[in-house]
């Protein structure tokens, strides 16, 4: 039997991406969108991306060299945004996981606190923004609070869910080995809940990322969302598109990173 050549797995993706770029180039070069600056070509976007990451001349005949955009390189804008969600997320984990464990294990706490948690979850985080600016000012403190409020309900809810899903006999087994109440939590409930906690964190990261980008509309510089907004309002469409692409690719990278962490922390997921 002759060996059949199989198409490599990456081929469809590459073909699609090339097609999208080609279509984009054609649309940008055509007169479909006017004025033309509203539809930058892929090359112009790439150019804006490079300029935003380097020292470059301000252009327009002015002989002045500036640092990236708004005095920060684009990657620095990105790092500032990532730092905000990093801190907000860390606080959300530190509060959400213990709260979820407590609510999951103690029925009375769950009954009392449950409705409040559901209420918090149902509020779009940006609704807090004005309130938080009034309380904590327009700088990073209010943004980190916002991200904390966005990220902690999904983490707490996933933790509660995980605790409630722990099989009764897994707890009974460890009690019959002589475990104390505290040991039941540390040696069974917490590790058994870890897959759910990580799922909650994954949801929270996605949520926090969309929230931080939107939150940076208010005094968001440096910040990738702030830059995306400002450049649009200044008609630097190519730069704005570059920021949008960076925001999207970062979201995908964050998700992939958490999946990687999941795989190494809970190798038993789906197997037991």
């Amino acid at each position, binding site marked *: 039997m002759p060996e059949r050549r199989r198409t490599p797995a990456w081929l469809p993706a590459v073909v699609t991406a090339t097609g999208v770029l080609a279509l984009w180039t054609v649309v940008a070069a055509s007169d479909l969108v006017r004025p033309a600056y509203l539809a930058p070509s892929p090359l112009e976007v790439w150019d804006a991306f490079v300029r935003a990451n380097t020292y470059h001349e301000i252009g327009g005949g002015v002989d002045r060299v500036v640092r990236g955009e708004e005095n920060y390189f684009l990657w620095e804008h990105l790092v500032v945004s990532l730092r905000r969600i990093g801190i907000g997320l860390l606080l959300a984990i530190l509060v959400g996981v213990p709260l979820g464990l407590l609510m999951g294990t103690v029925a009375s706490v769950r009954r009392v606190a449950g409705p409040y948690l559901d209420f918090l979850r149902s509020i779009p985080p940006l609704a807090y923004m004005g309130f938080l600016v009034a309380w904590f000012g327009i700088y990073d403190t209010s943004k980190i609070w916002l991200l904390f409020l966005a990220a902690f309900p999904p983490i707490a809810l996933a933790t509660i869910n995980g605790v409630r899903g722990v*099989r009764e*006999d*897994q707890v*009974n*087994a*460890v*009690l*019959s*080995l*002589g*475990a*104390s109440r505290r*040991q039941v939590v540390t*040696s*069974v409930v917490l*590790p*058994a809940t*870890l897959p759910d906690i990580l799922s909650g964190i994954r949801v929270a990261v996605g949520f926090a990322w969309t929230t931080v980008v939107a939150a940076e509309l208010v005094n968001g510089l440096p910040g990738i969302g702030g830059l995306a907004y400002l450049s649009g309002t200044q008609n630097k469409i190519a730069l704005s598109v570059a920021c949008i692409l960076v925001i999207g690719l970062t979201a995908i990278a964050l998700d992939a990173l958490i999946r990687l962490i999941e795989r190494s922390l*809970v*190798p*038993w997921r789906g*197997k*037991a």
Partner: protein
Amino acid sequence: MTLESVRTHAGAVRVAGVEHVFGSRGDTVPALDRIDLTIEPGELVTLAGPSGCGKTTLLRLVAGFMRPSSGTITVGDRTVRGPGAERGVVFQQPTLYPWLDVRGNVALGPRLRGAAKAERAARAEEYLAMVGLTDFADRRPYELSGGMQQRAQIARVLANDPDIVLMDEPFGALDALTRERLQTELLTLWRTTGKTVLFITHGVDEAVLLGSRVLVMSPRPGRIVFDEPAPFAAASADVDPVELRASAEFAAMTRRVREAIA
């Protein structure tokens, strides 16, 4: 009687006037109807009965996972109010923890007690060797076959050195060959360790072969309708279980147990 079984023991398990009802207000299902039962130290008591008769309920009451609706359960002179390390439980489904390797699972009891690392490791090795899993110590439970998981679970319970081992149809989900091998292993373990064992099964053969005393429970609400000593568990030290199974005495007792169940 070996010297082993003379060591201090938690004492007899006494089930006195225990009734148990599931559900509440109007919608209740009686599960157990006045059980009176004393299990002496060192006995291997098998409890057979049709499925749903309440035998697992009785085991879970003795384990302390539930409190009986009425009556009391004592171990030695202490009333059972919850699970305890002196009553090890082997579940029907192996409840091994997938975040620990097999060694970590077996060493869990000593670790919870705060045993030193060296002692934990030594105990784990000893009991892994006893159930023939030495080569699988570094595997995760889900990498093991069902029979090996069940052996690992038994090793975990024994490594915690309980006086009483409660086993809830531990071999029910296994294929016939694995089941027979584990039955033989259990008998060896029982003879060498002198543990008190309560073994739940729905298999008549299994009940007669393994029990030093065989109980039968009636359909719900469960009552004990048959209670006889059986010689085969002790005899299995000298005679191959295959021969024991083929003997006339075995057949006769099996028939009586079967009649008691029907």
